[in-house]
């Protein structure tokens, strides 16, 4: 199930006209030269974002990279985790 914010009037009204402002509400600030493209899924097709690969991940396996992917990074309201933000693997 989607989180409540995804179904709320603020998100539904603003994502298509001011995505940079919506990202700021999530604490995500991107450089001005990063172009923002919105996908409004008006039919039954659903989209997910393949997040940009973070730095410091040369030589990582697919499984290791997957640990950096969050739900929000696939919605497009956040970036993938950096290696430093990665949750610690169970030992």
């Amino acid at each position: 199930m989607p989180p409540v914010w995804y179904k709320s009037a603020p998100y539904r009204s603003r994502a298509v006209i001011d995505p940079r402002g919506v990202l700021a509400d999530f604490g995500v600030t991107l450089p001005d030269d990063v172009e923002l493209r919105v996908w409004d899924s008006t039919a039954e097709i659903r989209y997910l974002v393949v997040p940009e690969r973070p730095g410091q991940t040369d030589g990582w396996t697919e499984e290791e990279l997957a640990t950096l992917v969050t739900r929000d990074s696939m919605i497009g309201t956040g970036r993938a985790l950096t290696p430093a933000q990665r949750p610690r693997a169970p030992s």
Partner: protein
Amino acid sequence: MNGVHDMGGMQNFGPVVPEAGEPRFHAAWERRAFALTLAMGGARVWNLDQSRAARESLPPAQYLASSYYQIWLDGLIKLMLERGLITREELAEGRMHEPPVPIPNVVTADKVTAALARGSPTERPLAGAARFRVGDAVRTRVLNTPTHTRLPRYCRGKRGTVTMTHGAHVFADANARGQGEPQWLYTVRFEGSELWGSDTSAAAVHVDCWEPYLEAG
């Protein structure tokens, strides 16, 4: 319908507020309203687009003042009243007065998991060829459909470019009227400036458009 549900581009709703822990429900009745709506959807007395139409055609002031699941519950009540599955007296008293109306399908607990996993694919076979191809310049028609439509107000009469084709799918506008004919479905890219002028931070907005929404641009 040009209803308040079609709020893309409206301003002054305030910031998006993520919640810690993201609780799915905020009261026990919300869980029940959600389950009831899914169960009655599975009864096949109405389709998905008819249930959307019921929610969207609630009185505008009521819609905007209601929580998400309150809208679901009010939409469900409306559908059940319209189709004679409950009466106003039964609703008011919480007791059955009339014998139950037969329904095409009863979603019992043992069927729920499989039904949810199966989903409701909308792709359909359609003879002939799609009118547009990737790269084609198109313009959305200026439509003010009084019944359910999925063409947002913010992208009517706007020029765009087809970026994806998806085959033919159940056409929501017709499905909401109980007519099932599929239509070709496209993803159309609109430049932010085409939709909003300079008052936007979107470089582009992609919208899924069925062929009846489009003309050659």
